[in-house]
């Protein structure tokens, strides 16, 4: 089933065009990887999906992005509700300078999801459990989140993102600042999370894309060169550029 449908998306930074005519369908409850060389626009595209580009003054987005058949670029779209449904995990772990508990309860609090302290405790616990962090931190929930290791911080950010039960999770190179062990933990987690969430991950590591994703899109110079099942892209791509990138001949 198609969860997100992008149609002819163009993105401009001031006068410079960053994305050209991107049309891409994203399957529900699967992991879609976006790969490509640096500056090819894959992160820009990711940020279109929860309208994070609104934060950048000079950035403008054209075209339709349908999520559950609703165009999020429409004026009637409420960004607060949209971002409640579409969570995001960033390249560098960015826990708030608050306690672990406050970090996870941040989303539920601003969206008024818990009626009582007990309910909130439950949300925090399930989110941390889903992020495979509960066992490590259950005794120090009221210590600052910034005191954790890099990998734990990133899992805390994932817990924060899933605390509001989003339908889609966007991940912008979530492992690029982590060591191999922490990376393996996050990848395992992604595999688990796709049962309940649709996941789109931007990555520089082709091995990671091959390991975690079912679908892959290849971006180059602001254009979507090719997309399809990960198997096909990695084993038998249609486009020569894709072939060259996958085999490490450029990029």
């Amino acid at each position, binding site marked *: 089933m198609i969860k997100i449908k992008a149609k002819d998306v163009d993105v401009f930074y001031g006068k410079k065009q960053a994305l050209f005519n991107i049309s891409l369908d994203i399957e529900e409850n699967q992991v879609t990887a976006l790969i490509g060389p640096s500056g090819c626009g894959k992160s820009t595209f990711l940020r279109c999906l929860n309208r994070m580009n609104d934060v950048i003054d000079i950035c403008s987005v054209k075209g339709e992005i349908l999520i559950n058949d609703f165009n999020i670029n429409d004026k009637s779209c409420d960004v607060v509700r949209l971002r409640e449904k579409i969570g995001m995990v960033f390249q560098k772990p960015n826990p708030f300078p608050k306690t672990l508990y406050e970090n996870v309860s941040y989303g539920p609090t*601003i969206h008024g999801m818990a009626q009582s302290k007990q309910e909130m405790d439950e949300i925090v616990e399930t989110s941390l459990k889903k992020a495979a962090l509960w066992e490590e931190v259950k005794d120090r929930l009221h210590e600052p989140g910034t005191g954790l290791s890099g990998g734990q911080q990133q899992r805390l950010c994932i817990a924060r993102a899933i605390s509001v039960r989003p339908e889609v999770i966007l991940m912008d190179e979530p492992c690029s600042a982590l060591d191999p062990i922490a990376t393996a933990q996050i990848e395992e987690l992604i595999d688990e999370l796709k049962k309940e969430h649709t996941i789109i991950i931007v990555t520089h590591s082709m091995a990671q894309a091959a390991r975690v994703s079912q679908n892959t899109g290849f971006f180059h110079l602001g254009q979507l060169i090719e997309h399809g099942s990960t198997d096909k892209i990695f084993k038998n791509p249609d486009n020569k550029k894709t072939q060259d990138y996958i085999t490490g001949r450029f990029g």
Partner: protein
Amino acid sequence: MNLILFTFIVLLGFTSYYFGRKKAYTIQSTKKRLTALPQFYGYYLAIWCAIPAFIIFSLWAIFEPTIVKLLILSDYSNQGYLDDELNLLYEKSKALSRGQFTGEITPFIEASAEKYLSLRSIAQSSKVVIVLSAIIASVAYAYKRISSNSRTREPVEKFLKAVLFTASLAAILTTVGIVFSLIFQTIDFFKVIPLFDFVFGTHWYPAKAFVRDSSEALDPTMYSDTFGAVPIFAGTFFIAFIAMCVAIPIGLMSGIYLAEYASTKVRQYAKPLIEILAGIPTVVYGFFAALTVGPFLKELGTSMGLEVSAESALAAGGVMGIMIIPFISSLSDDVITSVPQSLRDGSYAMGATKSETIKRVIFPAALPGIVGSILLGVSRAIGETMIVVMASGLAANLTLNPLESTSTITAQIVVILIGDQAFGDPKTQAAFALGMSLFLVTLCLNIVALRVVKKYREKYE
């Protein structure tokens, strides 16, 4: 004369730099590898020029006057003069040699003055000779010593370190000196005025101390009920409180606006404009408060049936608050801007609105810096003088009514020290005691601020 000598030594320094570098180039041209860049050889020689000059100059400055004095006074030894009289004789002959002496000229003094002049000129010329020969000797020695493998870089680096160390030492020693002079004068003050009366007395009336003729003996009882500092401490904190009531909300909100809401263009113009407020001399704020705000408040009060003094704490405090706004807004703008963008992104991505993000993420993250900026503002408010002197009156009333006039520590120091000052008089020493207490208050404030900020940092970093 000294200036010419000094210029000449500086020129010598440049010359030795030039020769040092040149020798290094010569060594280099023989295909030998140098241990340092040629410039270091130059600096090395320049240092060999500067150090002897500096040492001889300082020794001269320390010993010359003493030796000259000894030589002149040796004429008068065994004549039964007292030490004080000898000193006076010496000062008289010095003054005469400069042509500034107005008293009766005795042959003795005239002879001493001539001797003084001749000694000075001998000292001067021997100084020139000694300094120049020492410099030339040391530079020549160093010049001969440097070779391809001599170490020049390390001494130059060490010399730089020593110069920088001396500079910071000078700053620290000056502060220590000021504090000590405060302490000793304060101790003298409290020998006459009991500490208890000063700290807990509620009458501050230094005009009473003006009456004393300095030839009269000091009678501590006449100062009872004169130097009770409670009213002026209360006035200081009260006016600072009013100022912060104005400055904190406005400064903080404008800081948040500039950092988070204003477009780049607005910020580009608005920030310098606000900072201009900080560049206005406080004396201008002072007469603005005294001539515009004060009378305005008085009229406003009268029209509402309130009795407002023309010199009210409200006028002074309010204007002082306006003066402090730019400190708080500019500093808090800086700390808020320096909160990493990734935290904002994280919060926006959770669906938080701008105000929620500011309230829940950015403000807590920036709090140490904001607290710092506020405490800096408080220090300014407590130490501010001109506005208070001009706008809030000089009579130390013990009051909590912002519409009455009151006075502050700084204003009272001004009152005490304006006009003639007699050293060793409790009136003057009172200024030192006040300065000391002001210093202690701001010191405590700074220590508390550092503690608060550190504790907060530990919690979140």
